[in-house]
Protein backbone atom coordinates (compact mmCIF):
# COMPACT_ATOMS: atom_id res chain seq x y z
CA UNK A 1 0.00 0.00 0.00
CA UNK A 2 1.14 3.53 -0.65
CA UNK A 3 1.52 6.26 1.94
CA UNK A 4 -1.51 7.98 0.42
CA UNK A 5 -3.53 4.77 0.95
CA UNK A 6 -2.59 4.68 4.63
CA UNK A 7 -3.43 8.35 5.07
CA UNK A 8 -6.75 7.95 3.34
CA UNK A 9 -7.70 4.82 5.30
CA UNK A 10 -6.60 6.30 8.60
CA UNK A 11 -8.53 9.55 8.10
CA UNK A 12 -11.62 7.82 6.73
CA UNK A 13 -11.71 5.26 9.56
CA UNK A 14 -11.01 7.87 12.27
CA UNK A 15 -13.85 9.99 10.95
CA UNK A 16 -16.08 6.91 10.70
CA UNK A 17 -15.34 5.96 14.31
CA UNK A 18 -16.41 9.42 15.53
CA UNK A 19 -19.58 9.37 13.46
CA UNK A 20 -20.44 5.80 14.46
CA UNK A 21 -19.93 6.71 18.13
CA UNK A 22 -22.31 9.67 17.81
CA UNK A 23 -24.91 7.45 16.15
CA UNK A 24 -24.46 4.71 18.78
CA UNK A 25 -24.89 7.24 21.61
CA UNK A 26 -28.05 8.51 19.94
CA UNK A 27 -29.39 4.98 19.58
CA UNK A 28 -28.58 4.04 23.17
CA UNK A 29 -30.27 7.11 24.57
CA UNK A 30 -33.46 6.14 22.76
CA UNK A 31 -33.66 2.36 23.05
CA UNK A 32 -31.30 1.55 25.92
CA UNK A 33 -27.84 -0.05 25.88
CA UNK A 34 -29.22 -3.61 25.89
CA UNK A 35 -31.30 -3.28 22.74
CA UNK A 36 -30.10 -5.18 19.65
CA UNK A 37 -29.79 -1.94 17.65
CA UNK A 38 -27.54 -0.47 20.34
CA UNK A 39 -25.48 -3.65 20.30
CA UNK A 40 -25.20 -3.40 16.50
CA UNK A 41 -23.90 0.15 16.94
CA UNK A 42 -21.34 -1.05 19.49
CA UNK A 43 -20.29 -3.89 17.16
CA UNK A 44 -19.82 -1.42 14.28
CA UNK A 45 -17.62 0.82 16.45
CA UNK A 46 -15.55 -2.16 17.60
CA UNK A 47 -15.05 -3.32 14.00
CA UNK A 48 -14.10 0.16 12.78
CA UNK A 49 -11.58 0.43 15.62
CA UNK A 50 -10.17 -2.98 14.80
CA UNK A 51 -9.69 -2.17 11.11
CA UNK A 52 -8.19 1.23 11.99
CA UNK A 53 -5.77 -0.37 14.45
CA UNK A 54 -4.71 -3.01 11.91
CA UNK A 55 -4.22 -0.42 9.16
CA UNK A 56 -2.03 1.63 11.49
CA UNK A 57 -0.08 -1.48 12.44
CA UNK A 58 0.56 -2.35 8.81
CA UNK A 59 1.56 1.25 8.13
CA UNK A 60 4.07 1.07 11.00
CA UNK A 61 5.31 -2.39 10.03
CA UNK A 62 4.56 -3.32 6.40
CA UNK A 63 6.07 -6.78 6.90
CA UNK A 64 3.16 -7.65 9.20
CA UNK A 65 0.97 -8.10 6.16
CA UNK A 66 3.15 -10.81 4.70
CA UNK A 67 0.48 -13.52 5.19
CA UNK A 68 -0.86 -12.51 1.79
CA UNK A 69 1.05 -10.72 -0.93
CA UNK A 70 0.92 -6.95 -0.95
CA UNK A 71 -0.65 -5.19 -3.90
CA UNK A 72 2.72 -4.03 -5.15
CA UNK A 73 4.44 -7.41 -4.96
CA UNK A 74 1.40 -9.15 -6.48
CA UNK A 75 1.39 -6.65 -9.32
CA UNK A 76 5.09 -7.19 -9.87
CA UNK A 77 4.58 -10.95 -9.93
CA UNK A 78 1.73 -10.73 -12.41
CA UNK A 79 3.83 -8.44 -14.53
CA UNK A 80 6.67 -10.96 -14.54
CA UNK A 81 4.75 -14.21 -14.91
CA UNK A 82 3.15 -13.61 -18.31
CA UNK A 83 6.51 -12.63 -19.74
CA UNK A 84 8.10 -15.88 -18.60
CA UNK A 85 5.14 -17.89 -19.88
CA UNK A 86 5.23 -16.13 -23.22
CA UNK A 87 8.91 -16.97 -23.57
CA UNK A 88 8.15 -20.63 -22.85
CA UNK A 89 5.69 -20.71 -25.71
CA UNK A 90 8.23 -18.93 -27.93
CA UNK A 91 5.81 -16.10 -28.56
CA UNK A 92 8.32 -13.29 -28.69
CA UNK A 93 5.86 -10.66 -29.89
CA UNK A 94 3.62 -11.25 -26.90
CA UNK A 95 6.59 -11.24 -24.53
CA UNK A 96 7.79 -7.96 -25.98
CA UNK A 97 4.35 -6.43 -25.65
CA UNK A 98 4.01 -7.52 -22.05
CA UNK A 99 7.51 -6.39 -21.20
CA UNK A 100 6.74 -3.00 -22.68
CA UNK A 101 3.52 -2.65 -20.73
CA UNK A 102 5.06 -3.92 -17.51
CA UNK A 103 8.04 -1.59 -17.89
CA UNK A 104 5.76 1.42 -18.26
CA UNK A 105 3.53 0.47 -15.37
CA UNK A 106 3.89 -2.66 -13.25
CA UNK A 107 0.29 -2.27 -11.99
CA UNK A 108 -1.26 -2.20 -15.46
CA UNK A 109 -4.32 -4.41 -15.79
CA UNK A 110 -3.28 -6.00 -19.08
CA UNK A 111 -0.47 -8.31 -17.85
CA UNK A 112 -2.64 -9.38 -14.92
CA UNK A 113 -5.52 -10.12 -17.29
CA UNK A 114 -3.36 -12.20 -19.63
CA UNK A 115 -1.92 -14.00 -16.65
CA UNK A 116 -5.44 -14.97 -15.58
CA UNK A 117 -6.29 -16.13 -19.10
CA UNK A 118 -3.16 -18.29 -19.23
CA UNK A 119 -3.86 -19.69 -15.76
CA UNK A 120 -7.40 -20.53 -16.80
CA UNK A 121 -6.24 -22.25 -19.97
CA UNK A 122 -3.71 -24.30 -18.00
CA UNK A 123 -6.23 -25.37 -15.39
CA UNK A 124 -8.97 -26.47 -17.81
CA UNK A 125 -6.93 -27.33 -20.93
CA UNK A 126 -9.30 -25.20 -22.96
CA UNK A 127 -10.40 -21.62 -23.06
CA UNK A 128 -13.70 -20.30 -24.33
CA UNK A 129 -14.86 -16.87 -25.50
CA UNK A 130 -17.27 -16.78 -22.58
CA UNK A 131 -14.51 -17.41 -20.08
CA UNK A 132 -12.22 -14.76 -21.58
CA UNK A 133 -15.09 -12.27 -21.65
CA UNK A 134 -15.87 -13.04 -18.02
CA UNK A 135 -12.24 -12.50 -17.00
CA UNK A 136 -12.01 -9.27 -18.99
CA UNK A 137 -15.25 -8.00 -17.46
CA UNK A 138 -13.95 -8.80 -13.96
CA UNK A 139 -10.71 -6.88 -14.61
CA UNK A 140 -12.64 -3.99 -16.12
CA UNK A 141 -14.97 -3.79 -13.15
CA UNK A 142 -12.10 -3.98 -10.65
CA UNK A 143 -10.24 -1.28 -12.57
CA UNK A 144 -13.14 1.17 -12.58
CA UNK A 145 -13.92 0.53 -8.92
CA UNK A 146 -10.30 1.26 -8.10
CA UNK A 147 -10.36 4.34 -10.31
CA UNK A 148 -13.48 5.64 -8.57
CA UNK A 149 -11.85 5.07 -5.18
CA UNK A 150 -8.75 6.96 -6.32
CA UNK A 151 -10.89 9.83 -7.59
CA UNK A 152 -12.69 10.05 -4.26
CA UNK A 153 -9.34 9.98 -2.43
CA UNK A 154 -8.07 12.77 -4.66
CA UNK A 155 -11.23 14.86 -4.22
CA UNK A 156 -11.20 14.48 -0.43
CA UNK A 157 -7.47 14.66 0.20
CA UNK A 158 -5.75 16.26 -2.83
CA UNK A 159 -2.65 17.12 -0.79
CA UNK A 160 -1.96 13.39 -0.28
CA UNK A 161 -1.24 13.00 -3.98
CA UNK A 162 2.36 14.11 -4.27
CA UNK A 163 2.62 14.22 -8.04
CA UNK A 164 -0.11 14.12 -10.69
CA UNK A 165 1.27 10.98 -12.30
CA UNK A 166 0.98 9.08 -8.99
CA UNK A 167 -2.72 9.81 -8.58
CA UNK A 168 -5.96 9.29 -10.40
CA UNK A 169 -4.55 10.61 -13.64
CA UNK A 170 -2.14 7.71 -13.68
CA UNK A 171 -4.97 5.26 -13.11
CA UNK A 172 -7.01 6.86 -15.86
CA UNK A 173 -4.04 6.68 -18.18
CA UNK A 174 -3.44 2.98 -17.57
CA UNK A 175 -7.03 2.19 -18.36
CA UNK A 176 -7.12 4.24 -21.51
CA UNK A 177 -4.09 2.57 -23.04
Amino acid at each position, binding site marked *: *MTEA*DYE*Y*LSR*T*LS*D*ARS*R*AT*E*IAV*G*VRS*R*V*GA*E*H*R*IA*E*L*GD*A*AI*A*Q*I*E*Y*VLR*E*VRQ*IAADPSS*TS*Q*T*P*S*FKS*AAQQTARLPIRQAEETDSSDLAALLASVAQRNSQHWFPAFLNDVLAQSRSSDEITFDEVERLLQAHKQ*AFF*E*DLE*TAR*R*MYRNYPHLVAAPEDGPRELARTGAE
Partner: protein
Amino acid sequence: MYFDQSEFNELATRAAALTRDIADVPRLLRARLGPGHDLAQSAEEMLNTLEQLVHALRSYTGAEPQHMSSSEGRGA
Protein backbone atom coordinates in the same frame (compact mmCIF):
# COMPACT_ATOMS: atom_id res chain seq x y z
CA MET B 1 -40.18 4.12 26.30
CA TYR B 2 -40.64 7.35 24.35
CA PHE B 3 -40.50 6.71 20.60
CA ASP B 4 -40.18 9.29 17.84
CA GLN B 5 -39.95 7.87 14.31
CA SER B 6 -38.33 11.03 12.94
CA GLU B 7 -35.40 10.62 15.33
CA PHE B 8 -34.80 7.10 14.07
CA ASN B 9 -35.11 8.27 10.49
CA GLU B 10 -32.43 10.85 11.22
CA LEU B 11 -30.17 8.24 12.81
CA ALA B 12 -30.77 5.89 9.86
CA THR B 13 -29.89 8.67 7.41
CA ARG B 14 -26.64 9.40 9.26
CA ALA B 15 -25.78 5.71 9.44
CA ALA B 16 -26.51 5.27 5.73
CA ALA B 17 -24.26 8.23 4.88
CA LEU B 18 -21.51 6.73 7.03
CA THR B 19 -21.94 3.38 5.28
CA ARG B 20 -21.60 5.05 1.88
CA ASP B 21 -18.53 7.04 2.94
CA ILE B 22 -16.77 4.00 4.33
CA ALA B 23 -17.60 1.66 1.43
CA ASP B 24 -14.29 2.44 -0.23
CA VAL B 25 -12.32 0.96 2.67
CA PRO B 26 -12.99 -2.75 2.04
CA ARG B 27 -12.72 -2.14 -1.72
CA LEU B 28 -9.33 -0.49 -1.33
CA LEU B 29 -8.05 -3.14 1.09
CA ARG B 30 -9.21 -5.91 -1.27
CA ALA B 31 -7.40 -4.27 -4.17
CA ARG B 32 -4.21 -3.66 -2.22
CA LEU B 33 -3.98 -6.75 -0.01
CA GLY B 34 -6.04 -9.31 -1.92
CA PRO B 35 -9.59 -10.54 -1.25
CA GLY B 36 -8.37 -13.31 1.06
CA HIS B 37 -6.50 -11.06 3.45
CA ASP B 38 -7.86 -11.00 7.01
CA LEU B 39 -7.99 -7.23 7.08
CA ALA B 40 -9.94 -7.01 3.84
CA GLN B 41 -12.43 -9.52 5.23
CA SER B 42 -12.68 -7.65 8.54
CA ALA B 43 -13.41 -4.46 6.63
CA GLU B 44 -16.12 -6.31 4.71
CA GLU B 45 -17.68 -7.45 8.01
CA MET B 46 -17.48 -3.89 9.31
CA LEU B 47 -19.44 -2.69 6.29
CA ASN B 48 -21.97 -5.50 6.70
CA THR B 49 -22.54 -4.54 10.33
CA LEU B 50 -23.13 -0.91 9.36
CA GLU B 51 -25.61 -2.05 6.70
CA GLN B 52 -27.40 -4.15 9.32
CA LEU B 53 -27.50 -1.11 11.60
CA VAL B 54 -29.03 1.03 8.86
CA HIS B 55 -31.61 -1.65 8.14
CA ALA B 56 -32.44 -2.07 11.85
CA LEU B 57 -32.84 1.68 12.33
CA ARG B 58 -35.06 2.01 9.27
CA SER B 59 -37.29 -0.86 10.28
CA TYR B 60 -37.50 0.00 13.98
CA THR B 61 -41.08 0.52 15.09
CA GLY B 62 -40.65 0.88 18.83
CA ALA B 63 -41.80 -2.65 19.63
CA GLU B 64 -38.94 -5.01 18.88
CA PRO B 65 -37.08 -7.74 20.77
CA GLN B 66 -34.48 -6.30 23.11
CA HIS B 67 -31.51 -8.56 22.39
CA MET B 68 -29.77 -9.75 19.29
CA SER B 69 -28.49 -13.28 18.93
CA SER B 70 -24.89 -13.93 19.93
CA SER B 71 -23.80 -14.42 16.31
CA GLU B 72 -25.52 -11.33 14.91
CA GLY B 73 -23.55 -8.19 14.31
CA ARG B 74 -20.40 -9.54 15.85
CA GLY B 75 -17.16 -9.19 14.00
CA ALA B 76 -13.64 -8.23 14.88
